[in-house]
C-alpha cells in the first residue's frame, strides 16, 4: 500500500476552550491535488497550520509521507512547503536575499536551475533586488509562492493562494501548480474560488464548524449533490401547469410558453421529457444548466448543523 502524502487522524484543536477543529480525519494520496474548502472560520487554516507546524496539535496525529510531524518534525517540515494566507514578508531584505535565507532555513543549498525556473515562471526576475516593502500585493504573493517551493517540497500547501490577486496571476499560478503536480508534487489547497477548486482538484473535503462534512472526488460530489436547472420552451403556450410539474417546483414564465424548474435528485432530463410527453405538452426547445461546486458548497454548508454532522 502506498504511504499517504498526508494522513490526518482524529485531529483536534481548541482556542480558549472553543473548538476550532473537531476530530477530523482524512488522507491525501501522493500526486493528488486535494482541495480543503469551507466558509470563513471553518477550521481550514488551523488545520493547515497544524500540518505546517505553526500551530500546536491539540489532539490526534498528522503524518507526512509516513513521518510523524511532531516526532520527526525536521523531516516533515522539509517535505512540506507552505504558502500562508496572510502576506508574510520581511521588509529588511530583497527577494533575492530572502530566497537564499529560506533555502538555508531548510538546510539545503539553492538549486540554481530550480530557482531560476521559479523566478521565471512567477515573473520575479525584474524585481529580484527590490526590498519587500516596495513590492505590489501581487508580487508579494508571487514571492510567497516561490518561497514555499524553493526547497522542493513533496507536499505543497497553498492556503488561499489567489485571494486578492489578478486574473493573470491566477492563471499563471494554476498552470504552474498543474505542472509541478504532473512532476510529482502533491498539492493541498484552499480557495474561496470554487470554480477553481472544481477545475483543479481531484478530491475535495469540505469543512464546516471545525468538522469534515464532505469528502469525495470532485466530479462525484458535484454529480451526487449538484442539481440541474432546466428551461423548457413549449410549442404551444400553457395557461397553467399540471400538478405533476408543480410537484417538481416548476414555474410558468414567458407568457405561458416557458417552464422553469430545478430537477430534484435523482430525476434526470429524460424523466422530465417523459413526463412532458405523458402530459401532452410538446417541447420546442430545452436548456439545461448543471449546478457547479459553488451551489453544492452552499447547499451542504447551509444544511450542516452548527454542531456538525457525519462526514460525507
Amino acid at each position, binding site marked *: 500500500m502506498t504511504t499517504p502524502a498526508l494522513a490526518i487522524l482524529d485531529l483536534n484543536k481548541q*482556542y480558549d476552550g472553543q473548538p476550532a477543529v473537531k476530530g477530523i480525519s482524512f488522507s491525501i494520496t501522493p500526486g493528488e491535488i486535494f482541495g480543503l474548502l469551507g466558509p470563513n472560520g471553518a477550521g481550514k487554516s488551523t488545520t493547515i497550520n497544524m500540518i505546517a507546524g*505553526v500551530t500546536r496539535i491539540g489532539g490526534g496525529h498528522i503524518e507526512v509521507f509516513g513521518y510523524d510531524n511532531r516526532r520527526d518534525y*525536521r*523531516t516533515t517540515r522539509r517535505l512540506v512547503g507552505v504558502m500562508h494566507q496572510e502576506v*508574510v514578508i520581511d521588509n529588511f*531584505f530583497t527577494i533575492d536575499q530572502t530566497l537564499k*535565507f529560506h533555502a538555508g*532555513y531548510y538546510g539545503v543549498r539553492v538549486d540554481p536551475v530550480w530557482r531560476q525556473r521559479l523566478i521565471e515562471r512567477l515573473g520575479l526576475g525584474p524585481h529580484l533586488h527590490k526590498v519587500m516593502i516596495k513590492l505590489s500585493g501581487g508580487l508579494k504573493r508571487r514571492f510567497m509562492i516561490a518561497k514555499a517551493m524553493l526547497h522542493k517540497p513533496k507536499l505543497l500547501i497553498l492556503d488561499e493562494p489567489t485571494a486578492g490577486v489578478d486574473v493573470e496571476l491566477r492563471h499563471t499560478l494554476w498552470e504552474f501548480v498543474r505542472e509541478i503536480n504532473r512532476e510529482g508534487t502533491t498539492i493541498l489547497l484552499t480557495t474561496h474560488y470554487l470554480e477553481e477548486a472544481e477545475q483543479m482538484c481531484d478530491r475535495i473535503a469540505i469543512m464546516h464548524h471545525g468538522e469534515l462534512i464532505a469528502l469525495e472526488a470532485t466530479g462525484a460530489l458535484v454529480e451526487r449533490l449538484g442539481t440541474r436547472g432546466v428551461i423548457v420552451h413549449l410549442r404551444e403556450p400553457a395557461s397553467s401547469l399540471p400538478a405533476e410539474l408543480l410537484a417538481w417546483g416548476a414555474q410558468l414564465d414567458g407568457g405561458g410558453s416557458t417552464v422553469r424548474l430545478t430537477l430534484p435528485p435523482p430525476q434526470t432530463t429524460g424523466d422530465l421529457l417523459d413526463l412532458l410527453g405523458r402530459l401532452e405538452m410538446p417541447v420546442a426547445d430545452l436548456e439545461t444548466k448543471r449546478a457547479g461546486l459553488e451551489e453544492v458548497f452552499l447547499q451542504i454548508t447551509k444544511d450542516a448543523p452548527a454542531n456538525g454532522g457525519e462526514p460525507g
Partner: protein
Amino acid sequence: MSDPRLPEFIPWLPFYTLFQKEVRRFLRVASQTLVTPVITAALYLFIFGATLGTRISVLEGFSYAQFVIPGLILMGVINNSFSNAASSLFMSRYLGNIVDLLVTPLTPAQFIMAYTLAAMLRGLSVGVVVWLISLFFATLPWAHPLLVVAMAVLASFLFAQFGIITAIYANSFDSLAMYTNFILLPLIYLGGVFYPISILPPAWAGLSHLNPLFYLIDGFRHALLGQGDLSFTTAFAVSILMALALFAWAAILIGRSYRLRT
C-alpha cells in the same frame, strides 16, 4: 531522520542562515544599531572624560575617565545585545514573519543560539568601538585581559537572553519600550556605571547588591582596572549564575514555542 526524496540536508545550515540573517539585519540599519550607540557613548566619554571628569575622583589611583570607561563600554555591550535580540524577535512576532522560521526544520537550540550570537556580536562590536574611542580620553591598565573578554562575553550573552525573553513576553511596542525604560535603564544607571557602590550610604549600597548589573559592571571594571567593590570571584560567579538562569528561562520559552506557536 533523512528521506531519500529530499535534497541533501545540511544540519548546521538552518542555524548559520538565521545567524547570518540577524547579522545582516542589524548591519542594514547600522546607523541605528551601531552608529547611534557609539555616538551616545562618545558623548558620555566627552562629558565625563574631558569636562566634568577632570574635577571628580572616585577611585584612588585612577582618573574619573578611567573609572567610567569600563562602565560605558559594558553599557554599550548590554544595551545593544539586549536591543538586538528584543527588537528583532519582537518585530518578527509582531509582523508575523516568525512563521517563516516556525515551518522550517530549525531546532529550538539553533533558534536561540542564532538570535543570541547575533545579539552578542552587535553588543560586543559596539563595546569594542566605544573602547577604541575611549583611547582618546584615557588608557586603561587591562589588569586581567582574559577576564575582561570573559566578562564582556558573559554580559552580552546574559542580555541577549533577557532580550529574547522580553521579546516573547512583550505584547506591543509600548510594552517593549517599558522593559527598556523601566527595567533595563534603571538597572544600568544604578548598577555602578558612573560611581562606585562603596561611596553610597550603607542602605543604598546594600540595595545595590540586589541589582544584577552591579556584579557585571564591577567584575568588568575589576578585570580592566585591577580594583573593584567586590572580589572578582564573587562578581564572576553571580554573573555566570544569572546568565545560566536567564538562558534556562529563554530555552524553556523557545523550547515550548511559548507565544510563538498558537
